[in-house]
């Protein structure tokens, strides 16, 4: 159980209290700049501020098997191969585990990329390799900031399925995303708007018209989405 107790990062995030059970996929949605990344980083224990985060009742101490953080950045400074990069996810000083690396790459459909330098990959390919790095140590919790942002539609669906499978094996997954259709596949959604947690519940609860129009400024249309009339843009 991942608990946040009056977790706040003023002014970017107002106090939030949550309890996330393992084995679920939780999506964090909200307009640009709402505070999604701030919340995720705070949950991952990467920023300092008021409130606390507990995993199974204990204060959070970072460890590859306990928690994996995947930032939105796709930068890779060093021209190492995908396999080398993924292996770093096992943690500093960990014993090499070629099998785990291969499995993680395969799960992200990046096995053919194993021996290619990561700085020569396309953004989407690199995104999948970076995701494999987050998975390789089979952590109990996955906190992912926009993991599907650069992926093509096919791979987006693959990743959502992969995350669902991770949840099935007992991991807890929390991911930030913009794709509202895919967000509907999560077990639970957190809607962040202007630094506040505005809604918390099932996709059906959260993805209501009033939220979609009022916060995102969109409505469902026959062929997908369109701008809502009278949408209070920027509110």
């Amino acid at each position, binding site marked *: 159980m991942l608990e946040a107790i009056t977790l706040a990062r003023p002014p970017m995030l107002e106090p939030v209290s949550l309890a996330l059970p393992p084995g679920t996929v939780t999506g964090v949605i909200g307009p640009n700049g709402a505070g999604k990344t701030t919340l995720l*980083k705070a949950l*991952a*224990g*990467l920023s300092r501020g008021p409130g606390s985060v507990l995993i199974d009742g204990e204060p959070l*101490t*970072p*460890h*590859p098997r306990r*928690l*994996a*953080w*995947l*930032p939105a*950045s796709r*930068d890779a*400074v*060093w*021209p*190492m*191969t995908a396999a*080398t*990069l993924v292996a*770093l*996810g096992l*943690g*500093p*000083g960990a014993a090499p585990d070629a099998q785990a690396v291969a499995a993680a790459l395969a799960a992200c459909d990046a096995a053919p990329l194993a021996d290619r*330098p990561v700085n020569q990959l396309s953004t989407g390919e690199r995104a999948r390799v970076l995701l494999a*790095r987050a998975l390789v140590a089979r952590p109990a919790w996955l906190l992912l900031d926009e993991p599907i942002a650069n992926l093509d539609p096919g791979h987006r669906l693959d990743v959502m399925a992969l995350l669902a499978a991770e949840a099935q094996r007992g991991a807890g997954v929390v991911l930030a995303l913009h794709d509202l259709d895919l967000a509907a596949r999560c077990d639970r959604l957190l809607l962040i708007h202007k630094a506040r947690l505005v809604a918390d519940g099932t996709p059906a609860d959260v993805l209501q018209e009033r939220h979609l129009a009022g916060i995102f400024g969109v409505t469902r249309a026959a062929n997908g989405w369109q701008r809502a009339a009278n949408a209070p843009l920027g509110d």
Partner: protein
Amino acid sequence: MIRLLALLCLALAAASLAIGPVDLASVWARDPELARTLFVELRLPRTGLALAIGAGLGGAGAATQALLRNPLASPDVLGPSTGAALGAVLAGYFLGAGVIGMAAGGIMGALAALLLLLGLAGFGAGPAAGSTRLVLAGVAVATLLGVAINLALSLAPSPFALYDLMIWLMGSLADRTLPQLLIAAPLIALGLALLVRAAPALDALALGEEVAQSLGVATAGLNRHIIIAVALATGAGVAVAGSIAFVGLVVPHLVRPFTGHRPGAAIVPAAIAGAALLLAADIAVRLLPLDLRLGVLTALIGAPFFLSLILRGR
């Protein structure tokens, strides 16, 4: 690959011990005591210092590039080496410090320059220092400190001081003493040992500061650890031999392809390669008929490589 490098080092060291204006073997035939003095007091310190200082510069260069996640970062170009020279100059020419005092001055100078560089580059305050900002800060720090050395030597009590400027800015291993070796080498070894201990954490840092933190790396502590280790690994050497450029910049690039481009794992091979490079440069200094400074030769080898890096890069 490490074995090959170590063998190369040993071969160069043996050559370095054998090379000199005087034929050691014939002296030994004449008077073993004199030959012993020549070997222990002159040849051994020179070779030992080339090994130790080269290793320190190579390892520190690799570690700095790993810490700053920047292939252009290097203590011998971005300020710390110049800072070490200034620290040693102040300790030796003004405070009358001996070998130990100058080594301490060198280490503190390197430390101060490192802190100044990282502060100017905005490091440690958040996301990784942008390459442009880091290099600009480094050029500024190195230039400033170089001018300060010039000023210090002009104001020093000894009238010979200003003639030493070239030695401090370009390096020299000529006529270095055994006490200098016995003081610098352990300090450099300590610095290198600290760097090697941090190598796995530096590898993890390749994923970015946040990810490294989530993997259990204490990044604030790592910064402090590396800064102190780099100061130890470079400061004492500069206090003895002056600021030798390019070794720390070039050598990590040469060895990283063999460590899978893991920046932390490159520290040990870079140290060995740095030792080999400095040994080779110092041998060249003694063999070439021209009177060239050590730093000129390391730069002669390093600069074209540096240029090709830039051309190949973007």
